[in-house]
């Protein structure tokens, strides 16, 4: 299972845990499974209308910022973070 790092503000939804183990071969499946385990967390991560990550939110898989977002693959032992996207000048 992938290890998902939960941002501090959302850790109240995961019983105070910073890392949780979640199944899911793609980011979409991982988030859906995360929601099943910890109801209420998805709305902070996903724009349901657009069926995409909330604008400005980046998903980092094994240290690299994903360019595919919800569609990206997640490995069995991947480490997944949700962080503010970094833009640039």
């Amino acid at each position, binding site marked *: 299972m992938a290890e998902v*790092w939960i*941002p*501090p*503000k*959302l850790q109240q939804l995961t019983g105070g845990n*910073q890392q949780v183990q979640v199944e899911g071969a793609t980011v979409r499946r991982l988030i859906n499974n995360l929601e099943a385990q910890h109801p209420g967390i998805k709305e*902070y*991560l996903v724009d349901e209308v657009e069926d995409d990550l*909330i*604008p*400005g*939110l*980046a998903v*980092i898989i*094994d*240290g*690299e*910022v*994903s*360019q*595919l977002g919800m569609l990206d693959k997640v490995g069995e032992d991947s*480490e997944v*973070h*949700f*962080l*503010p*996207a*970094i*833009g*640039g*000048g």
Partner: protein
Amino acid sequence: MLEYKPNTVLSNQEFDSIGSSPVRHDGADKVTGRARYGADTNMPGMLYGKILRSPHAHAVIKSVDASEAEAMPGVYAVVTSADWPETSMKLTDLAEGAIHNLGFLSMNVLARGKALYKGHAVAAVAAVSTHVAEEALTKIKVDYEVLTPVLSAEEAIKPGAPILHDRLAAVASPALRPGGLLEDDADSLQTNIANKFEFSLGDLEQGFKDADIIVEKETTTRAVHQGYIEPQAGVAHWQADGKVTVWSSSQGQFTVRDQTARFLGIPVSQVKAIPMEIGGGFGAKGITYVEPVAALLSRKSGRPVKVQLSRPEVFEATGPTSGTKIKVKLGATKDGKLIAAEAELIYEAGAFPGSPVGAAVQCMMGQYDIPNAHLTAVDVVVNMPKAAAYRAPGAPAAAFCMETALDELAEKLDVDPLEFRLMNSGKEGSRRVTGPVNPLVGYVETLQAAKDHAHYNTALDGKLRGRGIASGFWGNNSGPASAVAVVNSDGTVSLTEGSPDIGGSRVAMALHVAEVLNLSVEDIKPQVGDTDSIGFTSNTGGSSVTFKTGWACYNAAQSVKQQMIERAAKIWEIPDEDVEYKEAVLQHKSDPELKLTFKQIAARMIPTGGPIVGSAGVNPPGPGPSIGVHMVDVEVDPETGKVDILRYTAVQDAGKAIHPPYVEGQIQGGAVQGIGWALNEEYVYNDNGGMLNSSFLDYRMPTSLDLPMIDTVIVEVANPNHPYGVRGVGEVPIVPPMAAISNAIYDAIGIRMNDLPMSPDKVLEALWAKEGK
């Protein structure tokens, strides 16, 4: 006189074209004045647009009466925000430094209901000449209810502070969500805090308990401007068929297209944005200011309209970077291991939410391996122009605090400051304080190159002279990009790509194609496409172009290469697999007599199957972070407080320098902007929120007379996610200078300067205070 060796490159791999230094394709046009910039478009019947701006930093717009202006001879249109639809408050990721709420951006382009900073656009006029337009502005009567402005984050977060947005949604989100407006019946306290979020790693309390030495400090910085030479300018023509064409100088023609369409409520396919040359942007030209206004005036007047900002308008109404207040607390063991870090970063967003504090908090300690940390980031609105991206947005102010605190810690530990950074540097696989593990990074190699440099190993003699070092981290960006390579019958290749060329990217893109095809770079003819002639490409920003658009050009060239192989195979009636492409020659693998050059096949491409066109659209992952280490020698004048830069060396990991002189230029340019930020530049306001120094005479940027040659060393730790190892280079060089100079001033006079700019008056006052005067 220092010995200056340009383009010192500590190379990892040699190529044929990549790493060479050809003359840029657009060079002759630019040095002879033929290149066409934002203001250079002129059309028959064109009108000139001028913008009426609020004289107040905070005011309710009770009414606008433009009847007298509209009646003036030569005036064709007057517009206010009432002339365009309200844009939804949907957030949009424009990949240029902050995530934008287009509703707020629309209100920034033309104020709706309230003027939120002095210079905020309230109305615009199109007339037969700029003089008539300016005269018409004086005839527009605006009834303001003047409110008290709030000009700093510190004041804006106090209870009872004037509120900019009555219904601002204060968001606490894992993402940097620059707010939105609450529903009118929502129950919420009024606030100027648009966002507050945190990162945690390890056990901070235990980390500080285990620390032998702790340093705490607080720094402040003011808003500074990007200071590009070319003011924003553009022409829009709303044609009779409802289509809109825009010619403007920007960091992204697709952003111009999309924002113009969104603000005007029309489909993006109705807008064609043509990128002109750009005279600097540094992030600020990644959003629109003039194009939607020109389009609105054109729709109302039926004529093409040009809008060109003056320098005071650029200062007072286009985004500077945020002013900041940052606290940090660092703990280390007596053997020099950083084990705990705590920080609070408060960034001023300007009049609308969305400062770059999200990037700042992720870059502040990005290059270090610290097991226990807690960082808090706060985004606050104030009555100043909406902050825009500026070269590594957010990171320089954060580094100013972090890297000066590290200097204090190294001093207390009695460890060389470079060695101290080496002892704590992040490596591939080590965890950053914001959570993710590092990919392959060149931090150790960059520090080592700095340590080995003659600058660091040459004693600095003289009274009131000092040396400082600092490092900087920037995450770099990728994004969608497109390229099309078309083979011409004479064997040249026309290359169209989607990234406006700010720093020499045309030649860098051409070098990608030349390398794949083993052609001379002079035989590649690069151009930047408009929105109807090239696929979507995200902004020229985030140090992303050479990575992402380089990938697109590489793939397009690979497609051409494969098609050339297929044509040779067809001519020789053999399988493709039997053809080898080598040195721009197609060769039969087992029959050395069968050879055709690239040019020969190009001449025969029509009868062998038609045009050869290679295209690519990409969104590649893994741009990899950039690291810079700067060292500087300064001398302080005890009579005036002026700080002179005696020697400056910047060392940076570029992954692979595609065109080393342009990488060097980026490093030098970033360092010089940082020197200006460190020593002179700031927005100076009166109590009413009026900017007092909105000209280059009063807003002091460094000139060549203020500076020594900025020496550079390019370190190449190849990025494994790019075919030639590229990392973005444009932004990280502005991150270390302020801290390096502050550390050097401390070394010279024994005073820690914690407030930017470290201008002569402040240095002199600090010297007097030290001497008890």
